[in-house]
Each structure stands twice: as structure tokens, then as C-alpha cells.
């Protein structure tokens, strides 16, 4: 089980990887989304916000989310550190992503662009 702080650190690593990728920022400049990242085994919620291609991370839940990512704390930390891809935990039910199919594909793509396969 990962701690809330470890999830925060993984999200900051994700943000760092994202912000280094200028191409990704240009590609996402018209994709403004609020993503809730929620652990289901510990009390931990974070908000990822994409505005004009810039990604910000903050602790706590947003008033309204376009996408919700739910998993156990260990999976979330692994996912945002890029140790695992979202597909396998998504297919085996460990990871739940609530949102439109296109938004889910875009999130998968961002992770792929930051961490590779």
C-alpha cells in the first residue's frame, strides 16, 4: 500500500515529465480537463487540471471532474510514476476510469508520451 504522500510524489513526477514535453503541451492546448485521482484503499484525492496545455496538480477533490481515475494507492503510484501502463490494470478491473472513451484514450496517450511503453 502506498501513502498519500507517495501518490502526491508520483503525480508531481508525472507533472514534471509532462511539462518537459513541449510537443505534448501544444497537442493538449485545446483539451481543458479536470481529472480527479482517487485512491480506494486510503483517504487520498488529488486534482489534475489541464488548462491551455499546462498541467497542474493539487491535493483534494475538485468541485466537478471531467474524468475520474480510481484505483488502490499502489496502482495509482505505479501508474503515475510510469512503472505500469494503464491498460492492464484497466482491463483487470484494478483501475477504473470514469469519463468519455475519447478522454480515456487521451489520458493513455499522455502517459505513453511521458513514460513511453
Amino acid at each position, binding site marked *: 500500500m502506498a501513502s498519500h504522500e507517495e501518490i502526491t*510524489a508520483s503525480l508531481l513526477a508525472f507533472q514534471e515529465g509532462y511539462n518537459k514535453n513541449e510537443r505534448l503541451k501544444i*497537442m493538449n492546448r485545446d483539451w481543458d480537463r479536470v481529472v480527479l485521482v482517487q485512491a480506494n484503499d486510503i483517504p487520498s484525492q488529488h486534482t489534475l487540471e489541464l488548462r491551455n496545455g499546462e498541467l497542474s496538480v493539487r491535493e483534494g477533490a475538485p468541485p466537478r471532474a471531467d474524468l475520474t481515475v480510481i484505483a488502490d494507492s499502489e496502482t495509482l503510484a505505479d501508474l503515475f510514476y*510510469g512503472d505500469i501502463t494503464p*491498460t492492464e490494470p484497466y*482491463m483487470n*478491473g484494478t483501475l477504473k476510469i470514469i469519463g468519455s472513451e475519447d478522454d480515456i*484514450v487521451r489520458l493513455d496517450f499522455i502517459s505513453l508520451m511521458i*513514460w513511453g511503453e
Partner: protein
Amino acid sequence: MGLKRVLTLRTVVATSAGLTLASSSFVAAVQVAGFLAGDTAWLAILTGGLLCLGAASCFSELNSRLPSAAGIRLYFSRAFNDRLALTVSLLYMAVVMGVVGAESYVLASVLNSALPAVPPLIWIVAMFLVVTGMNIRGIKIAGTFQDLITYGLMGSLLVLAFIALGRVGFQLTAPLAPGGILTFINAVAVGVFLFVGFEWVTPLAEEVTHSRLVSRGMLLAVGLLSVVYALFTVAMTASTPREALVASPAPQMVFARTVLGSAGVFWMVVLSLAASITTFNAGLISVSRFIYASAREYVLPPVFSRLSMRFFTPWVAILTVFAAGVTISLVVLATHRYLVLVNLAAAMESVVYALAGLAVIRLRQKEPQAKCPYRVKGGVFIPALTSLVFAGLAVAVMFTDFYVSLYLLAGFAILWWYVHQVVPALKSKYQPRRPARRRRPVAEPADAGCEKT
């Protein structure tokens, strides 16, 4: 903190019923009537609907246990094993592509019947190009529009049915004597096709205002569809010569022309277009995203996971479905054997529903302590009955149509081999092996795996 729960029962019913209502449903409805004597199609359709209610309650329990968009892939994987789940999911997606092919053929026949100057081939290619273009650009059909289409469609079908029944003075020929039991079973089996896809609403489980709404919505959708289909089919067979309906790939046009002349034809063209666009779109979205996710998992070659850098849609997967859909439609256009696809879908759907019943029983045994907000009442009776009945219906369709059993068994055998031989090779070839990037200490599992000496 609550999740974004905004969807109401109205939208759940519209989504469940909207995915099910298609132009090819009318072909299946006439086929159901063709099996039976007199105007007894309603009996088989209501029985099919009742059986689908059993399946819907099994899907509700599975979805409340495992609320995920991965659907049957996840349910069957947890209940049985991943290879069986993958084989069945791949086969199911292949059959959905077949349904899209049959749907395009039926819609092309509808449009060709209204505008005979344009050949069906042009309609088929044009329709596929429009829907494929929409999907590659990521254009959405708005939820409100979907609601309007579904409820408008159901309302229109009821109105047309009553107009037609009024024309024959509500006089039905032997409405209570379907003939032999075997023909009745076959009619029910094909009647299941009318409800194909009602369970695709399960991924909405965590976006509804109340967790029970998905199960209620599915049950309501199946109930509403049963009534609409039953009335419409009886009206068709009561007002229009059965031979003309059975001989046509677009029986709803024959019916509309008989009842309301050219106004009926125009009305039915609009209805068929509305019914088909939601089915096309749902089929293309679900199959292409399944292909994309499978390729990301190295179940299919990685080329299928390519995304458009402009629209962020899986364009290779979408074009693959386009190519498969057009090919299937062309084969159907050349052979006119569209009924095989309808029967194939009915048989496959029966297999999936039978497995859903078994999955409920198995998961209750395997994970008795797991969280399960919705449980089918009455112990194992409904899941077991669902499983037995749908297994029987699948066998009935396969016995009735030799090609269905041939295609289904061949498809299952090829995919079983693919999952056992090709998938491990793909995973071994493409799955990356890299050191973890994890920058934190790995948590030691408490006592797990420790031997005490």
C-alpha cells in the same frame, strides 16, 4: 466526496434501448413472425424479453460487483479465466462487426427503396464514410439528441403500429396459437436478437445519480422494447402480406408503404436513419476502442494502437472496423445472406448471456465477501435458469442454421488458438521489459510469503 453522478434514469433507459434499436431489428422481428403461425410473434418477443430480463439482472449483479467499462472481459476473466474471457470478447466483437455489416445492408436497402436511382453499394460506402469520418474526428452524438432519437423512435413505432392495427380493425389471426414448440423455441431464440446490446449500458454504473439506476434502467429498457417490438411486429404481420415482409431485406419499408403510402416511406426512412446512426456509432466506437485497448495490451499487433496526433482517436482501429464493415456488407450485398448475421448475433448473444449467468454463480462462490450492492434475488435460481435457457437457445439457433454453427464454432476455434498461441508470442515480442522508474522504496508486504521456521 461523491463522484460526478449526473445521469438520470431517463438517459440510462435511452442509452440501453437506443443501442438495441436498429434497422436490422425489423428484419429479426419479421423472422420471429415467420417461424410462427397466425399473429403470435408477440408471444415469442415477450418471452424473449422476459428471458432477457433474467440476463439483465445477472449483468446488474456483475456490474455492481465489478463496475468497469471492460465489461464481459473483466466479468468472465474473474469468474473463469483470462483466456476464455479474451476468446469470448474477441468473438463477440467480431460478431458486433457482423451486426454493423448487416445493419448497413438493411439501411442501404431502406434508402434504395426510397431512392431507387442510387444503388445500395453507394449508400453503404457513403454511410460508412460518414460514420468513420465522425469517429476519426471524435465527433460525439450529444446525449440529449440520443434521448430524442430513442424516445422519438419508440413513440413513432407505437403510433405506426396503432395506425396499422386500426386499419385492420384490430382483428388478429390466431393471436394465441403459435404452432409447434420447436418453432416457438427458434422464434424466441431469434427474438433475443431484438434486445442485443441492452447490456452495453453497464459502463455508466458510476456516473448515474443512484447506483441502482443502471439495473432499473436495463430492466425498464428491455420491458419497453418488448412492448414496442411486440406491438409493431403484430401490426406488421396483421396489415401486410407475410410473404412480402419475409422476402424483403427492409420489411419495415414494405409495411410503411402498405399502411401510409409515400408518407409512410418518408417517415420510415427517417426512423431507420435515426435507428441506424446510433447503432453504427455505438458499434464503431465500442469495437474500435476494444481493438485499441487490446493492442495496448499486446493482445493484437501494436499497429492497432496508433492514435491520430490531431484528433487523438485510434484511427488504425477505426479504419480496420471500416474495412471489415464494408467487406462484410459487400459480401452480404453479393450473397443476400444477411439473415446469417442476424442469427449469428442471436446465437453469440445467447452464449454471452449463458456465461453471464454462470459468472454470477461462480463469482458468488469465489468471492463471497466481495462488495456487491446489487444481488439477484432468489439465490442461484435466476442465474442458473438464465444460463440454462440461453445455452439452449444458442444450441437451437445453431441447429436451425447450419452456417451459424459453422461460423461460430470456426470463429471460436480460431480465436482459442490465437489466444493460446499468438497472444503469448505477441506479448513476448512487444511487451517492454524495463527497470522500474519507481523512486520510492518498495513496501514490504506484511508477513506475505514468509515461511515461519
